[in-house]
């Protein structure tokens, strides 16, 4: 599998590097491009699909996971696209953040469609008011709240599917490289709401409808380890240190409120 060469700068003198590469580029080299420009990933998706085709097709379980992910990404991509199109909704100073996030969701959709090929489902019909419950594209606060809920749900959703991808390690890896980006999105949206980037014990300002997004995230016992026993860190920070997964049913109960068909 091709990788961008992370060593491109290794053989140059630091001063030369400094002249030719801005600090931002250098950061980007560490922060992102080691494995992944979108073109690479979409090409990889096609290659992955072909590899499965040669071995009798993609296992049904893998198709199911990818389709589930595609539905969530379509929901997110449409949400940001509609939000950005709504004049006056998103303040100018934070608009670029949502352009970045929306652009990523578009890339995730393209990747998953490519990976699924003919198995890719149509984009669902969506109602972001959830039948009139939310004034989503009229209120920036509501838009932000839903963005947070979608991102926090999305990253938990990906990980809940990980056990089903054990026999497909390439797909697992690709799903995780999307998943951690969803977590980054979630963190930045949370900070726009003056919350911590991580998920504390309580969710101030969140309506009851958002409760399922954070269900089961207050655990201090993880995988048989009682963290209050083995760690001297306080309980709030213990629970923040792990993001628990959600299973497909839990995710669909949340996302389903916004899916008409």
């Amino acid at each position: 599998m091709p990788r961008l060469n992370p060593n491109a700068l290794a053989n140059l003198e630091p001063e030369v590097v400094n002249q030719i590469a801005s600090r931002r580029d250098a950061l980007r080299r560490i922060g992102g491009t080691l494995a992944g420009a979108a073109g690479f990933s979409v090409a990889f998706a096609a290659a992955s699909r072909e590899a499965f085709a040669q071995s009798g097709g993609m296992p049904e379980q893998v198709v199911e996971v990818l389709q589930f992910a595609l539905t969530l990404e379509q929901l997110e991509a449409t949400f940001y696209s509609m939000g950005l199109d709504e004049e006056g909704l998103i303040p100018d100073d934070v608009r670029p953040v949502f352009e970045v996030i929306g652009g990523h969701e578009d890339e995730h959709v393209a990747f998953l469609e490519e990976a699924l090929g003919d198995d890719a489902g149509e984009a669902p019909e969506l109602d972001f008011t959830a039948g009139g419950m939310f004034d989503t594209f009229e209120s920036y606060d509501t838009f932000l709240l839903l963005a947070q809920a979608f991102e926090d749900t999305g990253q938990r959703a990906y990980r809940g599917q990980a056990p089903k991808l054990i026999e497909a390690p390439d797909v697992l890896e690709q799903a995780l490289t999307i998943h951690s980006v969803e977590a980054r999105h979630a963190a930045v949206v949370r900070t726009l709401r003056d919350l911590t980037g991580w998920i504390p014990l309580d969710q101030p300002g969140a309506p009851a409808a958002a409760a399922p997004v954070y269900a089961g995230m207050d655990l201090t016992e993880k995988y048989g380890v009682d963290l209050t026993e083995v760690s001297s860190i306080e309980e709030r920070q213990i629970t923040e240190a792990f993001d628990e997964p959600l299973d497909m049913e839990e995710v669909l109960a949340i996302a389903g409120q916004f899916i008409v068909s």
Partner: protein
Amino acid sequence: MSFHTVPLGRRRFLALSGASAAGLIVAGCGEDEEPAQTTPAEEPAPERMADVTLDFATTAGVLNYAYALEQLEAAFYTQVNKEFEAGGETFQAQLRDIGAHEQVHVDFLAAILGDDAIPALEPNFEMVDFANRESVLQTAFTFENLGVGAYNGAARFLARLASQDDELAPTALMAAGDIVAVEARHASVIGAQLEPGQDDMFAPNAFDPAMPPAEVVAAAQPFIVQRIAVTNADPQGG
């Protein structure tokens, strides 16, 4: 703030950018050597026995890999929270939270590993200027992104072990997922503060890296006194 005022940060940074050139076994430095210089691949460092060898054909090896990185991160934030006093109240609170999370990860992994845990590692932060916001931020961003890439890249090894009916591997895979999400949150929060005016550093790409263990260890080695080696760590290997 220009690079000229933070030479230590830049040197560290460039060392990291090229660190994977050093290969997996010969990278790094012993206690009696000058640290922080990456070794060109064509010019192997003097052979030294590794102090720690991480075997990616075992779940304990993969978990110890995580344990090593979490130790490094926890030690970094411990020192940050002791020495770095600028940046404002919110930033200071974020740094305390992040440091606490890393310590929880260390404590969790130590508990899961039990007698299989590698010894405590000794960090080397000579390259970091703990009084300098830019140096602290850049090092934090580097460590968090390294963590994200490391966990993402380790998943396939745990998947392989799980498919071979290794008992601990499925748990390790899920735990690693729970942790990497939080590392990504850290990277996002740190990245957003790197360069005001740059809007995408919280998530520089639509796809995060999945880094091979050898690259991660080579990048981390300059910050660790003990010499770390990896084995059975080819992502495409069987």
